């Protein structure tokens, strides 16, 4: 009996292997009506490359799932249009969530041969890219090649996100902004007006009290589900006043951060957070953030606009009416706006002029009005090209998607100086802030103590880092 089981399994595996082998480079046939290959590689036509006519180059990305499919689709359309015209071919390779550490390893070991020509990098990797001897700043490339993109076409906030030490290093590609998601049905049940969502943290505290539902001493619906980590904190700080820097030296963009410059704003946030936690309706850890919001277990949450797509899909099953609104202020009149999240495309010079120009053409294509429109419609990221919102296709698309309209509004009205800080020891800072936040939520630290803790620990971290990296 066991023998038969083994034989069955072996046959199943052989069948699978044979079908896999027969597909050569590993792109699987898609059963669904998809014209794009699976998240895999688009192989260069060897014969054309041999002829010396097509310039093939590598594009690395870390887009997963449906975003990954959209990315592959974009690469394919590049190859079919601009690529074909100019004799260029982009090989896109999915590198997973370790893309940043891989890139860093390559730069550290100076392994130029194995570097990509174009790579999707997040803001955290900016200093790493800057240190590379092979980087090519996008600022230096504007106006070259087909010159189809000028700096003025790009959303200035997005361009600023990837500007380091005065020059724009990378081209923003997929941008997002932080929004407050709220459950309109829960609002109505709690006697709140869904058309008038909370604008400040104080209003959120009030709403949270009304939205939290307890049964037999256990909370069945939390008013708010947020972990106050570095990302959320820098947004809440940056939004205050006319925009606030997290650290000096333009929050790390002009030089290494020496110390935090946001003590008052930090205190404001923790004061508000203390009160929020005291309502008993704050869930301060994530289990399944999207799912819990979509199924009504949490009434409000702070999430990136990039999740609009997932939440739309999830709430289709659960039928909840949900909306988004702007990042909450501390004081009414705060108008800094939200930080730009998301990644960018960086290019590297491997010593081959043709590949370098090919990489630049690809980047221009990715930043173009039409591509950003297609990309945005497929993924829910916000278009970084200012011209996209005037396209009729795009206008029709966002008309049916009020969440995206609001996200776009916040995206375009944010002060370009409000950005996430650039720091190599992001992990430590994140831990410090998270620990202080958790302590405030549990009541083991007061807001004042938390503020002092964060200031002290962060400044020490900066000091240690700078000593080694001056």
């Amino acid at each position, binding site marked *: 009996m066991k023998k038969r089981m083994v034989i069955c399994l072996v046959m199943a595996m052989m069948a699978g292997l044979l079908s896999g082998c027969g597909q050569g480079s590993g792109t699987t046939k898609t059963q669904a009506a998809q014209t794009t290959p699976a998240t895999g590689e688009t192989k260069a036509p060897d014969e054309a490359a041999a002829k010396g006519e097509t310039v093939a180059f590598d594009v690395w990305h870390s887009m997963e799932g449906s975003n990954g499919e959209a990315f592959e689709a974009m690469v394919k359309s590049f190859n079919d249009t601009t690529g074909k015209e100019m004799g260029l071919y982009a090989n896109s390779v999915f590198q997973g969530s370790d893309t940043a550490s891989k890139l860093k390893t390559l*730069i*550290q070991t100076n392994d130029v041969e194995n570097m990509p020509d174009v790579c999707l990098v997040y803001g955290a990797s900016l200093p790493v890219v800057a240190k590379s001897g092979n980087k090519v700043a996008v600022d230096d490339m504007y106006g070259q090649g087909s010159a189809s993109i000028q700096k003025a076409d790009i959303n200035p906030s997005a361009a600023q996100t990837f500007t380091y030490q005065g020059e724009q290093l990378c081209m923003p590609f997929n941008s997002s902004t932080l929004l407050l998601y709220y459950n309109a049905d829960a609002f109505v049940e709690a006697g709140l007006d869904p058309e008038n969502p909370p604008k400040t943290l104080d209003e959120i505290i009030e709403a949270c009290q009304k939205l939290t539902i307890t049964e037999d001493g*256990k909370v069945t619906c939390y008013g708010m589900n947020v972990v106050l980590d570095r990302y959320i904190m820098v947004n809440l700080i940056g939004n205050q006043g006319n925009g606030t820097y997290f650290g000096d030296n333009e929050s790390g963009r002009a030089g290494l951060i020496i110390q935090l410059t946001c003590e008052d704003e930090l205190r404001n946030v923790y004061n508000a957070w203390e009160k929020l936690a005291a309502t008993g309706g704050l869930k301060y*850890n994530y*289990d399944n953030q999207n799912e*819990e919001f979509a199924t009504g*277990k949490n009434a409000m949450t702070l999430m990136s606009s990039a999740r609009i797509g997932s939440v739309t899909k999830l709430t289709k099953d659960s039928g909840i009416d949900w909306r988004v609104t702007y990042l909450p202020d501390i004081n009414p009149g705060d108008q800094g706006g939200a930080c730009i999240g998301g990644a960018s495309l960086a290019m590297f010079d491997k010593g081959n002029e043709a590949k370098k120009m090919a990489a630049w053409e690809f980047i221009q294509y990715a930043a173009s009005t039409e591509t950003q429109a297609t990309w945005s419609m497929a993924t829910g990221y916000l278009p970084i090209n200012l011209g996209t919102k005037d396209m009729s296709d795009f206008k029709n698309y966002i008309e049916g998607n009020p969440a995206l309209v609001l996200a776009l509004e916040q995206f375009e009205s944010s002060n370009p100086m409000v950005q996430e800080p650039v720091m190599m*020891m992001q992990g430590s800072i994140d831990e410090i802030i998270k620990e202080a936040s958790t302590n405030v939520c549990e009541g083991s630290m007061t807001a004042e103590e938390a503020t002092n803790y964060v200031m002290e620990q962060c400044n020490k971290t900066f000091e240690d880092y700078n000593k080694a990296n001056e």
Partner: protein
Amino acid sequence: MQRAKAHIKKKTLFQKIEPVLYLAPAFLLLGVFTYYPFLKTIVESFFRLNSMGEIREFVGLENIINILHNAKFIQSIGNTLKFVVFSVPFSVGIAFILAMIASKKRTISPFYETFFSLPMAMSMSVSAMIFELMFSPTLGIVNAISGLDIKWLNDKHTALWVIIIIQVWMNLGYNFLFILSAIRGLSVDLLESANLEGANAVQIAVKIIMPLVSPTLFFLVCNSLAKMMMMSGLSLILTKGGPQGSTETMISFMYKQATENSNYNAAYPCAVLAFSITMVATLITFIYEKKGVNYDMQ
């Protein structure tokens, strides 16, 4: 007389070289891929390094002293020791019990033999995901069946225990197979005579079988010890060291310092210290080998 002496001399020369030939492949590989990089790490831990790992200046013991003053690192040592103290005995002990259960061949032996060794076939990332779902406070089956409302991986009191449970489970299959092989290889007469003498199952297990399979047990304990001291994967995947550092182990701390913070001044001394602590623990078990483990299978 002369001829005999010459004969012995010739053998001795070849005999001297012979061990080298047998050890060469292993040590060559170990040398290039383990010893050399690690020695470099030890040397570099005496220097101040920048975020790209380049040497800036010599600082002697400053890095090690700094890391020993780092409260989070000390916490991670404590966590690691706690983790090891529970996971090693449990994973070997439970495997021993399972092996005792499975030692007698019955009709449905193949079934539970397979089940008992199944955890071995699962990779860490997949096991982590499955257990994460099972222990999810809201969607998970553990809370659903037991009716508890514990936050498991999100609660600093229970998070490390969940990780211990997952690790013990993952080790069960491997340990079970080894102990089972050892038990099955024992002389049947010995066991039968013990049975006849009126010893009950527990006595047989502890007083007779355990000493006889002690080489295997020793090997498993030693192996588990080293592996558990170096555990980082589960912490990094499931909790990222949280909540509040309660699941941070020495190596997960080191990994985060190296990759997330590019702080090699913390990562390298951390590696050296983790290695030293593990070495000491292993040496202690080897002292036990001299006393408690017997290699004569008769």
